[in-house]
C-alpha cells in the first residue's frame, strides 16, 4: 500500500513523459485522461482500506532516510484523517478537469495537459507529505503549473492576474520558509544528536514545546502564508483576478484544491505546532473570517461578471472554514474539514458550469445572458443544484459544513462571543441573495439576446463531468457521517493533545524571561505576581 500511494502521486508525471514522447494532440488528451483516471481508481483502495479507528495514526507511511546525519529532513509520505478526504478530492477532480478542457483548449495542448498533470502530482504531494520541507516543496511546486495555466491559457488580462497570483503567494510562502527553517533548527536542538528536524510527527507531538515568544513569530509567519492562500480577508485580492482570467480547469483546481492548501496548512501545522499562539490569535483571525464572510458576500452580490461573483463567494465560504478551525473544538473543526470538501465540490461545479456556458458564448457578463433556462434545460438543472449546494440548502452538502461550523463555534471556549456566529450566520442570508439573484438574471425572464436562442444544451461529456459532483453533493448532504468518520478520531485526539500541550507550555512559561507583551498575550502574569509575593 505504501508503494501504491507513491504510485498514485507520481502517476501523472508518467503521463507527462508519455505526452512529451508522443507529441500528438489527440494522444495528449487521451494520455492525460487515462493517467488521471488511473490515479483516481488506484487511489480508491487507499480509501477503502483506511483504518478509521486509527485515523490519528499516519497510514501507508513511506519513510526515507535523512538527507545528512543530524539533519532530519526526509521523504515522508502518508495519509491520515486530516488529509485522506482532501487527497481523495484531488484524485477525483483529476479526470474531471481533464475532461472539462477537452474541447475548449486549442493551443499548445502538450504544454497545457502537462501542466495539469504536474499540478495534480503537486497537489497530492501537499496533502500526503508529513515532513514540512517536503510539504513546502510540493506547496511551491503547485504554484508553477498554475502560473503557466493562467499566464498562457488565460483570458485577456492573464499576465497581470498570474503575476499577482504568483508573487503574492510566493511572498507569503517565503516568509513561511524562514519560519520553517527556524522551527527545524529549534526542534532539532530538542533531540539528542540532531541539529534539524521537520518531521511533523515529532513537531506536533508533546515531546516538543516551542517557547511563547518564538511561537508568536512562527505562527504569524506560517499563518500569513496560509491566509494568503486561503485567501482570508484582506489578503484575497489576487483571487478574483486569478479566477476570472484562469481557464476553466485552472479555476476549478484553484477553487477545489489549491485554496484548501491554506486551510489545510492552518490545521495541519499552525494548530498542533503553535497551539498557544493559535488560541490567542483565534479571536483576531476569526474576526477576519467573519468580516470575509460578509464582505465577500456583499462584494459578490454586485459583481457583473459571473466568474468574479463565484470567486468572491469563495472568499465568503472559506471564511466559514477558517472560523471553524479557530473555534478549536471537534464539531467546528470537523465542520471545517467537511466544508473544505464541500466547497471543492460545489464551487468546482460552479466554475465548470460557468466554463461550459462560456465555451458557447465567450462572455462571462451577467448582462449578456437572461432567460436562457428555456433553451438549455439540463444546464439549468445542474446550475440550480450547484447553486443550492452553495447557498447551504439542507439535504445538500454545503448545509452540513456550515451548520457544524456555526453550531460548534457557538459552544467554542476559544471564541466565547456569540457575535461571531450571529454575524457569520448573516452570510447564510446573503449567500441566498447573491446566488439566486445571479441565477435569476442569467437564467430567468424573457430571452434577452437573440443569439442566445440557439444555445446548445449540455452534451454527454459535460453531463458526465457534473453528475459525480452532484452525487457527492447529495451524498454528503444526507449521509455526512460516511465522510466525517475518517477524520473524527484524529480531530478529537489532535485537539485534545494540542490543548494539553498548550496548557503545559503556558504553565511552564517563565514570566520573568518573557517580554511584557508576551506575558500579557498569553496570560502568564498571575504567576509573576505570585512569585513576587514569595520573594
Amino acid at each position, binding site marked *: 500500500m505504501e508503494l501504491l500511494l507513491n504510485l498514485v502521486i507520481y502517476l501523472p508525471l508518467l503521463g507527462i513523459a508519455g505526452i512529451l514522447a508522443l507529441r500528438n494532440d489527440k494522444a495528449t488528451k487521451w494520455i492525460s485522461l487515462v493517467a488521471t483516471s488511473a490515479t483516481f481508481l488506484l487511489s480508491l483502495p487507499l480509501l477503502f482500506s483506511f483504518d478509521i479507528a486509527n485515523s490519528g495514526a499516519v497510514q501507508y507511511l513511506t519513510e526515507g532516510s535523512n538527507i545528512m546525519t543530524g539533519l532530519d529532513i526526509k521523504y515522508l509520505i502518508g495519509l491520515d484523517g486530516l488529509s485522506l478526504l482532501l487527497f481523495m478530492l484531488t484524485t477525483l477532480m483529476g479526470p474531471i478537469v481533464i475532461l472539462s478542457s477537452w474541447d475548449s483548449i486549442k493551443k499548445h495542448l502538450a504544454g497545457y495537459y502537462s501542466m495539469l498533470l504536474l499540478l495534480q502530482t503537486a497537489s497530492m504531494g501537499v496533502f500526503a507529505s508529513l515532513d514540512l520541507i517536503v510539504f513546502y516543496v510540493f506547496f511551491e511546486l503547485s504554484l*508553477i503549473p498554475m502560473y503557466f495555466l493562467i499566464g498562457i491559457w488565460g483570458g485577456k488580462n492573464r499576465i497581470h492576474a498570474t503575476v499577482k497570483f504568483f508573487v503574492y503567494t510566493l511572498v507569503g510562502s517565503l516568509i513561511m520558509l524562514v519560519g520553517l527553517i527556524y522551527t527545524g533548527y529549534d526542534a532539532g536542538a530538542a533531540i539528542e544528536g540532531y541539529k534539524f528536524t521537520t518531521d511533523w510527527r515529532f513537531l506536533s507531538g508533546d515531546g516538543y514545546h516551542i517557547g511563547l515568544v518564538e511561537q508568536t513569530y512562527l505562527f504569524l509567519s506560517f499563518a500569513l502564508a496560509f491566509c494568503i492562500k486561503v485567501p482570508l480577508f484582506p489578503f484575497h485580492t489576487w483571487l478574483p483576478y486569478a479566477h476570472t482570467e484562469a481557464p476553466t480547469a485552472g479555476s476549478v483546481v484553484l477553487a477545489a484544491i489549491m485554496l484548501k492548501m491554506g486551510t489545510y496548512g492552518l490545521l495541519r501545522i499552525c494548530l498542533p505546532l503553535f497551539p498557544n499562539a493559535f488560541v490567542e490569535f483565534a479571536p483576531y483571525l476569526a474576526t477576519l473570517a467573519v468580516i470575509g464572510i460578509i464582505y465577500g458576500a*456583499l462584494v459578490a452580490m454586485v459583481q457583473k461578471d459571473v466568474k468574479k461573483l463565484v470567486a468572491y463567494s469563495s472568499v465568503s465560504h472559506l471564511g466559514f472554514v477558517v472560523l471553524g478551525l479557530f473555534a478549536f473544538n471537534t*464539531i467546528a473543526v470537523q465542520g471545517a474539514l467537511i466544508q473544505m470538501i464541500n466547497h471543492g465540490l460545489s464551487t468546482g461545479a460552479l466554475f465548470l458550469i460557468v466554463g461550459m456556458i462560456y465555451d458557447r458564448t465567450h462572455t462571462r457578463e451577467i448582462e449578456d445572458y437572461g432567460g436562457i433556462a428555456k433553451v438549455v434545460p439540463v444546464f439549468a438543472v445542474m446550475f440550480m443544484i450547484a447553486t443550492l449546494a452553495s447557498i447551504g440548502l439542507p439535504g445538500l452538502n454545503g448545509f452540513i459544513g456550515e451548520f457544524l461550523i*456555526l453550531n460548534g463555534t457557538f*459552544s467554542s471556549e476559544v471564541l466565547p462571543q456569540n457575535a461571531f456566529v450571529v454575524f457569520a450566520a448573516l452570510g447564510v442570508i446573503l449567500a441566498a441573495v447573491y446566488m439566486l439573484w445571479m441565477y435569476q438574471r442569467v437564467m430567468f425572464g424573457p430571452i434577452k439576446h437573440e443569439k442566445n436562442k440557439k444555445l446548445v444544451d449540455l452534451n454527454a461529456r459535460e453531463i458526465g463531468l457534473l453528475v459525480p459532483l452532484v452525487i457527492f453533493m447529495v451524498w454528503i448532504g444526507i449521509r455526512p457521517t460516511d465522510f466525517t468518520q475518517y477524520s473524527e478520531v484524529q480531530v478529537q485526539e489532535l485537539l485534545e493533545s494540542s490543548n494539553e500541550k498548550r496548557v503545559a507550555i503556558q504553565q511552564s512559561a517563565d514570566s520573568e524571561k518573557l517580554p511584557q507583551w508576551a506575558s500579557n498575550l498569553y496570560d502568564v502574569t498571575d504567576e509573576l505576581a505570585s512569585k513576587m509575593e514569595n520573594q
Partner: protein
Amino acid sequence: MDSATTLTSLIIALPLLGFLVNGLLGLSSKSFRQRKALIGTIANLTVFIPFAIAVYFFINMGQDSAPIFVELFTWIEVGSFSVDIAYQLDQLSILMTLVVTGVGFLIHMYSVGYMWEDEGYWKFFAYLNLFIFAMLNLVMADNLLLLFLGWEGVGLCSYLLIGFWYTDMANSAAGSKAFWYNRVGDFAFLVAMFLTFQHVGSLDFDIILSSLEAIPADDKFWIAFLMFIGATGKSAQIPLFVWLPDAMAGPTSVSALIHAATMVTSGIYLISRMSAMFVMSPEVMMIIAVIGALTAIVAATIALTQNDIKRVLAYSTVSQLGYMFLALGSGAFTAAMFHVVTHAFFKALLFLGSGSVIHAMEHVEHGLHEEGKDVHFDPQDMRFMGGLKEYMPSTYKTFLIATIAIAGIPPLAGFFSKDEILAFTFNAGFAGFAEPLYMVLWGVGIVTAFLTAFYMFRLTFGTFNGEFKLPEKISEAAGAEKHLHESPKSMTIPLWTLGGLSVVGGFLGVPNFLLSTFTHQEEHINLLHNWLYNVTADYELGLSHSVEWILMTVSIFVAVGGVYTAYRMYGSGATEESDAKLADRFGVFYETWKEKYSLDEFYEGLVVHPIVRWSDKGLAKFDMKIVDGVVNTVGGVVRLFGSVFRYVQTGVTSSYALALVLGVILVLSMLIL
C-alpha cells in the same frame, strides 16, 4: 423492519419517488413529457397512498397513545453532536400529516385539469411532489434539524413554484423575494437551534422538552423569540409577510396548497410543537399575540381595497395566519391548530375556486382571440368579472360555502375555530401577564372578524353577483359571456369535497360549554382538545359559561354584521362604486390600505437599495482601490528597491518559475534517492 417503520418510510419515500420519476424522466425524455395521464397518475398516487397510510395510523392511535418513534438512519454524528433521520408519530404530527396529504391530494387532483395545457406539466408535478416530501419531513420530524430540512425544503419548492412561469421576470423575482424573506427568518431559526444545543446537548424534541429546566430563563426567552422570528418568515407575519402576496405569481393550485393550506402554517406547527417551552416565556407569548393581532388587522384592511381576486385571498391568508398567532400567544395552541385545519379546508377551497374563475376568464380571453378580437385584460381582476354565478354554478356554490365559513357564520368550520381563538384571547386577559393588553387584542380580533366577513363577501359578490362586466368595460368584448364555462369534473370534485369539509370541519372543535351548560357537569365534546391534550401546553380556559355564551353571541353578531354591511354595499355587484364610497369615507386611511402601508417601499428604500448601492459604490470600489491598492503599493515599493539588484532580477517571472522548478526537482530527488 417493523410495520410502523415500513409504513412511515413509505409515507416519506413515495412523494420523493414521485418527484424523482417525474423529474428525471421528464428532464430526459421528450415522449415521457407528453404522457400527461401517466405523469398525473404517478403524482397523485404518491400522495394518495401516504394519505391512506396516515389514515391507518390515525385510526390505530388513541388520544392517550404514546408517540411512535421511527429511526431510519443517523444523519450527522460529529463529536458530541448527533442527529438522526427519525420521525415521530403522535397526535399532533398525524393531524398535520392528514391535512398535508389529504388536502395535498385534492389539490394534486385539481391540478391535473388546471395545468393540463401547460408545457411544464411534468415539472409542475415533480415540484409538487417534492413539496409534499419536504412538508412531511417538516411535520413528522422528531428533531429540530430534520424539521429545518423540511422547513427550507418547502421554501425551495415555494421558490420554484412561484417562479414556475419563469419567462416572466416578475414571477422569478417574486420567487426570489419569497426565498430571501424566508431566509431572514431561517437565520433566526438557526441561531435558536445553536442556543438550544448549547444548553440541552440535543435537538430531539422529546429531549429538549424534557430538559427545559437546563435552559436559563434568559436563553429560554431568546430561543422562543428567535424561533418565533423564524415563524414570521415562513408563516408571513409582520415584519416579514410582504413576500406572500407576491407569491401569488405562481399557479393557483400552488397558492392553494403551499401559500394557504400547508407551508405557511409551518410556523404555527413549530410553536405548537414547542409549546411547553413557549409558555415558560410570557414575554414571548405576549409578543406573539401582539404581532398576530396586528398582522390580522393590517392584512384585513389591505384585503378590502384589493381588486385582484388572488391578492385579496393572499391578504386574507396573512390575516387568518395572524389569528393563529394571536391564538398561540394567548396559550390556545389547540385552537391555533384547529384554525390551521379549518383554514386549510376553506382557504384551499377559495383559492381553487378563484383558480376555476381565472381559468374561465383566461378561456374567455382565448376565445375572443380566436374570434380575431385583440382584447387584453387581467383575468384575475374582479372589476372585469361579476355575474359569474350563472355560468359557473359549482364554483359559485362552493366559493360561497367557503366565504361563509371564513366569515365565521355558524355552524360552518371557521366559526368554531375563530370563536375559540377569541375566547382564549379574552381568557388570557385574566392569565396574570399583561392582562389589559390581551383585552385590547381581543378587541382587535373582533374588529378583524368584522372586516373578514366584510371583505370576503365583497369579493364573492363582486365576482359572482350582478352583471358580467367585461363587455361593459371593453366594448370589443361584447358577447364574451358565451366563452364562459364551468371547469371540468377533475376540478369541481375537489371543490365539492373541500366544500363538504368546510361545512363539517368545525365539529372537530365544538366548545365544551355548549353541552355542559345544559348538563351542569364537565363535558369533553371538543374532539380536537381531547386529541391534542397530551401534546400541547394550552392555558386553562377559566371563563364562566355565561361569559362564553356572551363572547360567542358577540362574534356571531359581528360576523353577521360584516356580511350584512357587505351585502348592502356590494350585493348588487356594484364593486367600483362602493369602493369609491369607502375611499371617500376613510380618506387617508383608505389610501394607506390601498398602498399596503408602503411596507415594500420601506424595505426596498431603507434596507435593500442602500445595501446594494453601498456594496456596489462603496465596498466593491474599496476592494479594488484600497485593499488591492495597498498590495500594489507594497509591490511597487519593493520593485523600486529591487531595481538596485536588477542584474539578478531579470524581471521575467517565468525564469523565476523555471528556477523554482529546477530547485524543487533537485530537492525532491535528493530526498527520494
